[in-house]
């Protein structure tokens, strides 16, 4: 009975938005709980609720995915509210991703926030941001894309600046916010230009209009498309809108960095994939494949090269996150129309694996911050002898980020490169290869510090934060298991991606 359960004719169609709703409701619920007795922080309850909400969203998304909701196996994509929202395989895939990362980060934050004020607000903001991301994945209109993007961004600004007595956090928040505001203005202006050229904000209509005769508005559309791309570039931390990322990730509380660099980035890609593939035909004014090729090459190169010489682990991860944005951009950069679903799917799969390994890496940094270990590579020296399990997990993340087996990052990265070669852009893969080798260098510096170097000074780590540990270990397990279990991921991603290619 299960496969047919969620078909559009058996459940009201709005239920297809259940993952989004689950996240939104949880966020509200957290505020309600907090408002009952604002002076009692009740960390366990808050984190518990947040986790349950995120897991519920994950469960719903997973269930829908396996049941075929919005996918070709049933009746195809479900559109809602005047086609402004869409639920299909890609939506659900990304929602599952956001929910997983959110769950991880919420669990980890339990220990990270211990003894701090405004916990309920923290969790609520996080869930609202997740709601925004989930909505981004479901956007079928530029308006929804913009609103959802802002819904994801505004809580994020607050989250980054959450440690309001910490100059780093505040500075990070400020930079993130200012560049974010600039980008959203660019984004909005771009949308307005696209609207000016096409007369619609709904992606299918835009596609049709752009594919048709634009009667002298080609330039307007072109500028619009480029500016829209700029908006996404901000969200995905791609060059040239990446400037906020190193500082924001470095200054923000580590769980937030993980959340932003994985989920938020993936959300940017989710909406970018949909908007560009279903909204902007390849021949409309701007050769956006070429655009993304340029962005991909510059982004991965800049991210990786800058990461190579960092002294602080967290900042290195920040730059590496930019580098990975460059890899993921290959999904669009090697998009070739009809067969583009493969590389797009590879990119999606990479983002999913990245969600686990990168979040895990930042959560390890959170763990280190929790212990009061310093921030630089040298400070991590010899940590493995004191915290072997976490260090194994961190090594797993690092190697997986570098694309080594037997970890999930191996497949996802190589399938991306493979997609690029398949599309004929072997040079794109070659640039990726150079960057990948360089990334191996700096990722292994972490491993080297943990395992190979001897501790400079003796110190005690203190307590073992159970929840944080659990989150780190779980992320590591997922990263490992995503190698043998990569089949469902890549197959789902590629079929979902293939479904949106017009």
């Amino acid at each position, binding site marked *: 009975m299960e496969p047919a359960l969620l078909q559009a004719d058996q459940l009201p169609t709005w239920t297809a938005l259940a993952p989004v709703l689950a996240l939104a409701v949880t966020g509200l619920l957290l505020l309600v709980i907090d408002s009952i007795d604002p002076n009692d922080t009740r960390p366990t309850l808050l984190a518990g609720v947040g986790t349950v909400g995120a897991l519920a969203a994950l469960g719903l998304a997973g269930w829908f995915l396996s049941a075929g909701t919005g996918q070709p196996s049933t009746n195809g994509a479900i559109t809602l509210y005047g086609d402004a929202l869409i639920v299909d395989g890609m939506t659900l895939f990304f929602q599952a991703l956001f929910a997983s990362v959110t769950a991880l980060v919420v669990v980890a934050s339990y220990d990270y926030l211990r003894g701090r004020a405004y916990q309920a607000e923290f969790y609520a903001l996080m869930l609202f941001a997740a709601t925004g991301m989930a909505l981004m994945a479901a956007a079928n209109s530029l308006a929804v894309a913009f609103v959802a993007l802002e819904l994801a961004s505004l809580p994020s600004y607050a989250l980054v600046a959450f440690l309001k007595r910490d100059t780093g956090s505040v500075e990070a928040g400020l930079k993130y916010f200012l560049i974010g505001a600039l980008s959203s203005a660019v984004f909005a202006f771009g949308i307005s230009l696209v609207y000016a050229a096409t007369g619609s904000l709904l992606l299918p209509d835009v596609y049709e209009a752009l594919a048709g005769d634009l009667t002298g508005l080609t330039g307007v559309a072109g500028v619009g498309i480029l500016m829209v791309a700029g908006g996404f570039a901000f969200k995905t931390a791609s060059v040239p809108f990446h400037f906020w990322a190193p500082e924001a990730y470095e200054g923000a509380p580590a769980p937030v960095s993980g959340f932003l660099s994985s989920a938020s980035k993936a959300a940017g890609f989710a909406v970018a994939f949909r908007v560009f593939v279903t909204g902007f035909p390849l021949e409309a004014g701007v050769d956006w494949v070429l655009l993304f090729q340029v962005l991909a090459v510059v982004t991965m190169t800049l991210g990786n090269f800058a990461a190579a010489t960092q002294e602080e682990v967290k900042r290195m991860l920040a730059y590496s996150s930019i580098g990975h944005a460059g890899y993921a951009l290959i999904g669009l950069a090697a998009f070739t129309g009809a067969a583009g679903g*493969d*590389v797009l*799917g*590879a990119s999606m799969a990479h983002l999913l694996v990245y969600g686990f390994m990168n979040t895990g890496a930042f959560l390890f940094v959170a763990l280190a911050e929790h212990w009061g270990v310093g921030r630089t590579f040298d400070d991590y020296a010899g940590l493995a002898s004191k915290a072997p399990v976490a260090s194994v997990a961190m090594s797993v993340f690092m*190697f997986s980020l*570098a694309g*080594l*087996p*037997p970890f999930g990052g*191996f*497949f996802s990265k*190589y*399938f991306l*490169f*493979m*997609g690029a*070669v*398949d599309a*004929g852009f*072997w040079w794109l*893969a*070659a640039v*990726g*290869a*150079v960057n*990948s*080798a*360089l990334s*191996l*260098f700096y990722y*292994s510096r972490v*491993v*080297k510090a943990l*395992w*190979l*170097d001897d501790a400079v000074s003796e110190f005690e780590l203190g307590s073992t934060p159970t929840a944080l540990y659990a989150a780190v270990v779980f992320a590591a397990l997922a990263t490992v298991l995503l*190698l043998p279990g*990569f*089949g*469902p991921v*890549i*197959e789902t991603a*590629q079929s979902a991606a293939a479904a949106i290619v017009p």
Partner: protein
Amino acid sequence: MIIEALIGVTFLAALVVMLAPDEYAGKLAFALSLLPVAGSLWMWAGFDAGGNALMAGSIAYQTQLDWLTVAGYDLQWFVGVDGISLPLVVLSTVLSSLAIVSAWTPIDTRQSQFYGLMLFMEANLLGVFTALDFFLWFVFWEAVLVPMYFLIGVWGGPRRKYAAIKFFVYTNIASLVMFIGFMALVFNLPVSSFGLPEITQALQAGKLSGFVGLDPATLKLAAFTAMFAGFAVKVPIVPFHTWLPDAHVEAPTPVSVMLAGVLLKMGTYALLRFNFTMLPDVATRPLVATVIAAVAVVSVIYGAMLALAQQDLKRIVAYSSVSSMGYVILGLIAYTGLGIGGATFQMVAHGLISGLMFMAVGVIYNVTHTRMVGDMSGMADRMPVTVGILVAGAFGYMGLPLMAGFAAEYFIFQGAFASTVIPSAPLFTAASMFGIVIVAGYLLFAMQRTLFGEFSLETDYEVRRAHFHDVAPLAVLLLCTIALGVAPNIFFEMITDAIEPVVAVVGGGA
């Protein structure tokens, strides 16, 4: 299912050892490592496949399960062995076991991690030699790097971190280059999976189509070049060899044994499987063949000359590995039964002999704490048995008849001399053969200065006799080397059986 059991048991053993207490880890690891040894010997005993696995020959112990589908291609769990891979499987298990024993003395910290990683590496090596699906193979191929990085980086010498990272990054970038080259081929073939047999057969049926403006012939050349460069680092072929001496010098003895004994063979194995089996028409172009033969000769002579200039015993053996691998390349490009067969045989032979040499040097190092030629002399006086075996091994390295090295080198020379693929084959062959003189030169000089003469030692360590468990692996390796030299058909017959179709494609002779 025997291959799955083999790999699975080894992985499991790695895990168990990793969790075992340090005191017992070494013994436990050895005991557990006997399981894959037994398994591989059992496979060998029951082996009766003929032909080349990639070229429609029968594949022994095959399993083929769909794993996942990516971009419309099936990626399978596809393993099996033929006459080329089985000897290497046996070599891997045996050498791993012996390397573990040889670690008992020198490894005195974090033992359980060390042995766990050794077994983990072994499991991946087995995967490399049995996988018949490209991605499956590639997973194992890359996974070998991870334990190696730690093994060098944690337990190595003073510059271990530099050596580990150099090895790590260098070989990784090579894999990426190779990957791109191979993918460019696969995507222009009408195949539905990454199964190596399917790809090989499609290539040989001439089904390759053009790609980004390249016609099939040019595409093949480009892919060949990329793959060759990629594997050349692993082998390593001059001028991509500089990571090897660093890695060897810093690595602890058992790791050097594995590195020289098995890891280098991954490169030549891959060259044989990919470049020379899949793209014979590129390899046999006169210009390509000339370049490869020249590179082989340079590797042999230049590597040997470098060995001549070294003072560190391990560095000597390391450079001589570069030299020996040059022979393998020469044998491969010869495209004759004896040439390629000899090259494959050399993989096994060199695995045994270089393992023996590194182990013997390690045993001496255990008691002297130096490997520098000038720091000691007259070691034969204090460690007669070890030195005796070392001398025997050194002569094996020099290609003494009735030891495996001679057989391999002779097959290669004989195969290469009459090669119709290499232009002026006799000259190239004769040039590379001069390596046998230089190898004798540097080994004899080093032995004279360290092993013979009046005993003296620069370091302040009390020289004691080696333990039985230090010497026993040496003896086993020596006996294996002699057995293979006296009766090369132990492996050679099945190797040539699997080589024959490769040679037949080119139309080369014996």
